[in-house]
């Protein structure tokens, strides 16, 4: 009985998330669901499971189901562009949330900010801590994935400005804590003299910190992450991670569904809802817990 | 014969070694056209190896082969086939999911309009024509895996013949077929040699050999012993050449005291296989079960042994009713079943002689934490290797590298080690040499002397008549005859075996 699809009175919004095995995306979902309930809209949620191709298929399914609007949380900046094209061609409004697509101009609105900024923010904080001088390593997300690409661009945009900061090593740990832990253990035993490690997400930063702690170098190496997951916030509070980068996931989710609701009702909406990144350090931690 | 048969193939000083074994040592044989040349020798003498060298499966270490006077070396089976040498292998190797015709023509499929597209019609027609010509009745469209072992063997033979090769090698082709089919085969072989071609034949069955051979070569331990015209040698002489000593009685039945009933079977039925079978077997007795291929004998004993438990009927051991739901139950009740197909159900070809022999016995070798008592295991296995004179470089050799007959001995050893009270043997001497055969028969006798029971299935009339105290005959799943030793008569037994078939044809 719950499947009476698109009854005329209720607005239905299709949402495709990039990957629901990512804690951060779950927070977007939380915000989105809460807001949707408040607005009384029906949401059809799909998990892209880390595949642009899947997200395109899901948007195709939304078109078949004749949803009133689509919220697209793209996994792949380029690969998800056809999804947007298809929705536009079918006359369904699209709100893009949290991550970019290359043809963003076709969307009705973008909610969030660019990953490049997060990469810049963490690199800047580390550069400042190091006083513009020192050896760093970067732990990347999975090679070729959009967030990895953009955060890397951001990292390098900043580090490139400091001739005295050397990137001694870069390696992927596929967003995984255990892989980062193994990687940093190996780096440290190789005698690499590091002053800071940039994790492109918190899971990897936490793994890196664990290796550093075990090697007794927690006072020598700064570790920073991105996402502000609860575990990372706790770690910042304990003085372990020096900082993490917070993105208002709940705010993004809520904002996206709200814009989708409005556009489905024919209201006019802004084409950009900027929800900026915020650097979380011990000082401002209280706001995020 | 001699005058119009010229030499087609000479094998000269062929040597071939495997790790730990010198399988062939300077073997030289000449093969002639229009001649059936039989190779004989004990298990592991090197017969199959020599033929595999000839058909391009193994490469000889040294020696020369001259085909029609020209030196040849076959690097692959394909090149041997191209030179007109076809072989039926000792071990069946059907491609079960292809049709009969596809199996026959694999590697030289007839095509449509010179395209690489199979001409199925043509293929089936060719197969049919060949089957008709040589007198076998099998639908070429059937799936190979659905055939019985005997039918598969006939298909393999037909396949080899269809190459129309100059030299046709048959390595123990009759080990899986019945007398009726053997006579078909012999007709085929005669026709074949008439066409100015040579046949090389390998078998352990004496009567057959004298029936079909023109010349006989004996190998022993990889060495050439001698070639003789079949008409010039006696069975005794051959055996002596093979085993290097005199071997007198082939079926040395000893008289034993026949005791109580140890196994009683009542109204056993399994639909489609056999129905209403009742019999009893006594201590100290060898009970033979005769019948034609496919009569349901194997199914019956497998059923008793718990492999496919019967649908109805009851079993009594030593007078007590028992339920046997699995081979494990049967083994626990002191039964052993030596199955007919060693490759399929008898051996783990990926493991060593030792591990194959001890697998059933392991349970009794277990000490604390079910750890295997290795010392006892090794000594019992070694004892059996000696007792059955299993020809193997060591107990740790993989069984797959043993000759066919020695593999059969490993199966026998495995079941002897489990020390059963009721020993069931399904074609136990298939593919084993005269010496080993005598050995197996001696073992059966020893067994009964100890007051144990033996049930034996055999398709060889002399064997089953020679060894049994009593004989049951099965035909199409029904008991059609029951003979005391004093009443044994080959014709009567055969009549019972064909009971149903005759009724149908009348």
């Amino acid at each position, binding site marked *: 009985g719950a499947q009476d699809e698109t009854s005329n009175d209720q607005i239905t919004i299709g949402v495709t998330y990039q990957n629901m095995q990512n804690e951060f995306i779950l927070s977007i979902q939380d915000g989105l669901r809460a807001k949707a309930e408040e607005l009384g809209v029906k949401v059809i949620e799909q998990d892209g499971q880390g595949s642009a191709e899947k997200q395109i298929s899901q948007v195709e399914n939304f078109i078949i189901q004749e949803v009133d609007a689509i919220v697209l949380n793209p996994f792949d*900046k380029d690969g998800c562009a056809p999804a947007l094209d298809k929705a536009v061609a079918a006359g369904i409004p699209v709100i893009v949330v949290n991550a970019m697509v290359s043809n963003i101009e076709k969307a009705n609105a973008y909610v969030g900010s660019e990953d490049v900024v997060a990469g810049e923010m963490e690199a800047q904080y580390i550069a400042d801590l190091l006083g513009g001088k020192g050896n760093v390593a970067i732990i990347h997300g999975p090679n070729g994935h959009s967030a990895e690409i953009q955060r890397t661009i951001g990292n390098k945009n900043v580090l490139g400005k400091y001739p005295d900061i050397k990137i001694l090593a870069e390696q992927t740990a596929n967003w995984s804590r255990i892989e980062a832990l193994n990687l940093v253990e190996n780096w440290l035993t190789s005698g690499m003299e590091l002053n800071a490690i940039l994790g492109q997400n918190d899971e990897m930063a936490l793994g890196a910190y664990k290796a550093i702690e075990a090697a007794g170098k927690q006072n020598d190496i700064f570790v920073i992450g991105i996402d502000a997951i609860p575990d990372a916030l706790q770690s910042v509070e304990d003085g372990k991670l020096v900082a993490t980068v917070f993105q208002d996931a709940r705010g993004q989710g809520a904002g996206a569904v709200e814009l989708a609701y409005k556009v489905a009702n024919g209201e006019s909406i802004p084409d950009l809802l900027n929800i900026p990144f915020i650097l979380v350090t011990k000082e401002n931690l209280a706001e995020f817990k | 014969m001699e005058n119009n048969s010229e030499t087609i193939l000479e094998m000269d000083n062929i040597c071939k070694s495997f790790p730990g074994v010198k399988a062939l040592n300077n073997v030289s044989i000449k093969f002639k056209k229009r001649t059936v040349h039989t190779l004989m020798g004990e298990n592991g003498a090197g017969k199959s190896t020599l033929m595999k060298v000839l058909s391009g499966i193994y490469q000889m270490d040294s020696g020369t082969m001259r085909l029609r006077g020209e030196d040849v070396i076959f690097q*692959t089976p394909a090149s041997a086939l191209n030179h007109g040498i076809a072989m039926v292998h000792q071990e069946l190797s059907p491609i079960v999911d292809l049709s009969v015709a596809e199996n026959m023509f694999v590697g030289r499929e007839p095509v449509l309009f010179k395209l690489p597209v*199979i001409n199925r019609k043509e293929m089936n027609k060719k197969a049919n024509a060949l089957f008709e010509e040589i007198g076998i009745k099998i639908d070429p469209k059937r799936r190979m895996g659905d055939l019985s072992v005997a039918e598969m063997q006939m298909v393999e033979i037909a396949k080899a013949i269809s190459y129309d090769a100059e030299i046709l090698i048959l390595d123990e082709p009759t080990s899986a077929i019945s007398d009726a089919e053997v006579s078909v085969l012999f007709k085929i072989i005669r026709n074949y040699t008439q066409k100015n071609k040579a046949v090389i034949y390998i078998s352990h069955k004496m009567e057959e050999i004298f029936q079909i051979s023109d010349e006989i070569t004996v190998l022993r331990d990889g060495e050439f012993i001698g070639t003789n015209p079949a008409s010039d040698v006696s069975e005794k002489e051959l055996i002596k050449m093979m085993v290097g000593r005199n071997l007198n009685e082939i079926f040395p039945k000893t008289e034993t005291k026949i005791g109580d009933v140890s196994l009683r079977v009542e109204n056993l039925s399994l639909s489609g296989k056999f129905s209403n079978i009742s019999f009893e077997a006594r201590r100290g007795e060898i009970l033979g079960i005769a019948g034609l291929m496919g009569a349901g004998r194997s199914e019956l004993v497998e059923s008793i042994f718990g492999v496919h438990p019967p649908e109805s009927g009851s079993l009594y051991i030593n007078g007590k009713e028992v339920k046997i739901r699995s081979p494990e139950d049967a083994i626990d009740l002191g039964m052993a079943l030596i199955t007919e197909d060693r490759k399929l159900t008898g051996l783990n070809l990926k493991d060593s002689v030792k591990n194959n022999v001890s697998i059933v016995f392991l349970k009794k070798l277990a000490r604390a934490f079910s750890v295997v008592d290795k010392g006892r295991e090794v000594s019992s296995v070694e004892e059996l290797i000696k007792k059955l004179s299993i020809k193997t470089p060591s107990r740790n050799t993989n069984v797959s590298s043993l000759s066919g007959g020695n593999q059969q001995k490993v199966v026998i050893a495995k079941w002897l080690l489990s020390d059963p009270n009721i020993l069931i043997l399904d074609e136990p001497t298939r593919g084993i040499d005269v010496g080993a055969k005598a050995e197996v028969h001696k073992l059966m006798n020893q067994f009964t002397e100890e007051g144990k029971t033996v049930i034996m299935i055999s398709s060889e009339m002399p064997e089953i008549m020679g060894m049994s105290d009593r004989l049951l005959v099965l035909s199409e799943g029904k008991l059609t005859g029951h003979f005391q030793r004093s009443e044994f008569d080959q014709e009567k037994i055969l009549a019972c075996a064909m009971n149903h078939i005759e009724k149908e044809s009348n």
Partner: protein
Amino acid sequence: MTAILKNIFNISNKKLLKDYGLVLAFMGICLVLSILSPSFIKPANLLNILRQTSINGILAVGMTFVIITGGIDLSVGSITAVAAVVASSFAHPGEHSIVFVIFSGLGVGLLLGFINGLFIAKAKLAPFIATLGMMTIARGMALVYTSGRPVINLSDQYNYIGGGYIGGIPVPVYIYGLVVIISFFVLRFTVFGRRVYAVGGNELSAKYSGIKTSNIKTLVYMISGMLSGLAGIVLSSRVMSGNPSAGTSYELDAIAAVVIGGTSMTGGVGTIFGTVIGALMIGVINNGLDLLNVSSYFQQIVKGSIIIFAVLMDKQANSKD
């Protein structure tokens, strides 16, 4: 139900019968989904399913050849990625002819498949190891080739392959259909096809019959490689970018489609028809669960259970005959 279907499909038709348990399971799933979600049987959705199945479907066809010979190809996902980035890199607007672009993708797939074949057939490596190695190597090659960045800015012509329509039907569906028809024919009616079965069914016997088994084996990996190349082209043109991380873990879905379709992992047995049903079943389940808006966590539980259940049902049906 079983009895009725047995009557409808004439029992004497053995071939059909062998597959009918699976077909029955497949139809059952479709029926349930149609009832639960009215969108499911809309023609547009059925086309969606076909298009969404096409990539895995193409890979599964190649995998069928490999598995019938008793092998396995774990590298299909990575080869898909290599072909995707190579073809894409030539597919910028106005640079190369579309024919050249397509051949580059197919060619690179064929080449990597050939290397797989060499290692397996000539160097006699276990297929699992050789293709596992290739899986890692090819992924690395795709990353090195692109420096880890997706190849973008592709021509409209190229995009037509994955995104175009002919007579209202998506182009990938035609491509998939063509692949299926040709493979079906090859496997069933050609000398090569029968030899694939012979090699998988009993390699020794095939060899003794004079078949160059190593050639057959090399060829099946080349076919699988080439079809992976094709999948890479379709995929990259569908997402309009050649991503070096594309195709990750595609091998599992492809193998699953083949095995669900009744092909035995030990070789010698299997059909393209079964594989198509297997791939469609996976596609239908993915699509249906999305339509029903089943939470993605439960989706996995449901999907796994359906696969097990479908194969169980197939076994039941077959064992009863």
